[in-house]
């Protein structure tokens, strides 16, 4: 229990230990701890931000969906209208076409009838002459009686 040089030795050792701790131990460990703290804080705030972003994105998506739906509805409406118009227009066209066709057919039929009548008329004239020849037993001079025959054909 004697007080001696140990006292001073201890003081020196203490001073060196404190110096070492101040210089080489405390700063790196506390720096690492502070860095980790910052990392965690950043991570937490990033997570917060991410969840906020997610919410925002969801809202955004919902809004976009809504507008898309509305646009689609409008488009469908337009398409329907357009389709109706097209149908209407094609109906008109078809009707016109049909009428035109009917008209043409009618004209053709008429023409054919006229032709047929003419042919028939000529035939009938020949037949009449043949008949008359048979009856008169003499040949009818076609050239002589052509005037009469023509008259007859015109009456038919």
């Amino acid at each position, binding site marked *: *229990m*004697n*007080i*001696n*040089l*140990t*006292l*001073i*030795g*201890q*003081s020196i*050792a*203490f*001073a060196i*230990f*404190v110096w*070492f*701790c*101040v210089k*080489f*131990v*405390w*700063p*790196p*460990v*506390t*720096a*690492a*701890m502070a*860095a*980790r703290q910052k*990392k965690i804080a950043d991570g937490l705030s990033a997570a917060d931000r991410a969840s906020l972003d997610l919410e925002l994105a969801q809202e955004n998506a919902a809004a976009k969906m809504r507008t898309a739906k509305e646009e689609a509805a409008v488009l469908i409406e337009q398409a329907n209208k357009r389709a109706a118009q097209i149908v209407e227009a094609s109906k008109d066209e078809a009707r016109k076409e049909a009428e035109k066709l009917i008209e043409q057919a009618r004209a053709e039929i008429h023409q054919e009838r006229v032709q047929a009548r003419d042919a028939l008329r000529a035939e009938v004239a020949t037949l009449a002459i043949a008949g008359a020849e048979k009856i008169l037993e003499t040949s009818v001079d076609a050239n002589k009686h052509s005037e009469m025959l023509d008259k007859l054909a015109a009456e038919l």
Partner: protein
Amino acid sequence: MADTPVEYIKHHLQNLTYGKLPEGYERVATDGTVTQLQEATWTFAHTAQEASDMGFMAFHVDTLGWSIAMGVLFLGLFRFVATRATTGVPGGLQNVVEVCIEFIESIVRDGFHARNPIIAPLALTIFMWILLMNALKFIPVDFIPVLAQALGLEYFKIVPTTDPNATFGISIGVFILILYYSLKVKGVGGFAKELSLQPFNHWALIPVNLVLEVLVLIVKPISLALRLFGNMYAGEVVFILIALLPFWIQWTLNLPWAIFHILVVPLQAFIFTMLTIVYLASAHEDH
């Protein structure tokens, strides 16, 4: 080693002393032969008498050795962790170190409000060092002395904090810091004013104040050192007394006392640290 209980106790409380014996000193060997030293010599003390006759010019080799070993252990461990400190997920050892540092940081934050980057590492050093030195107490009292004896060393006391030299060594360091920061923060005038105008703020009472305040100032390191020394020394004496009992009964007292010291060891380290912080905080307070 020792024949009677008193000798046994005295032996266990004697430090291994390396010091200077004066010229003409008569050394009495264990067999009673006396040799006179021709000149002053540095040597190991073979008896308690020799150790005390060495006076101030002596070292307690065991105290110095073990305390430095503990300090190196502490700093080595913490430095090891500090160089490898990761900002990611810390490992087990780093966790322990960080718990210690956070503990010290929190008590410094609570007790010390000025800005001084030295205080927290200082407190950490004091706490860990004293904790490790105190913890040497858990080694049974006979283990190391018997081992040392086998190596030819007469005395070996391993707990440095049971040596007043160690505790005073630290508290003197703290005292110097108290004086340094008092002068630095308050200035010479401010410090003088604080010493002379408190607690009675009247010119006629300056001498009374001075006596009181200087006493208060000087008592700080003494109380620091004596509290730690007293607690540890008393605990050690009780351990040694228990060791005098028959071996088969020792554990009934030894075990509770050791368990009690699980509380005492960190508590004393904590008190020393806490008071150091408080003293230094008051040194930083400018009125």
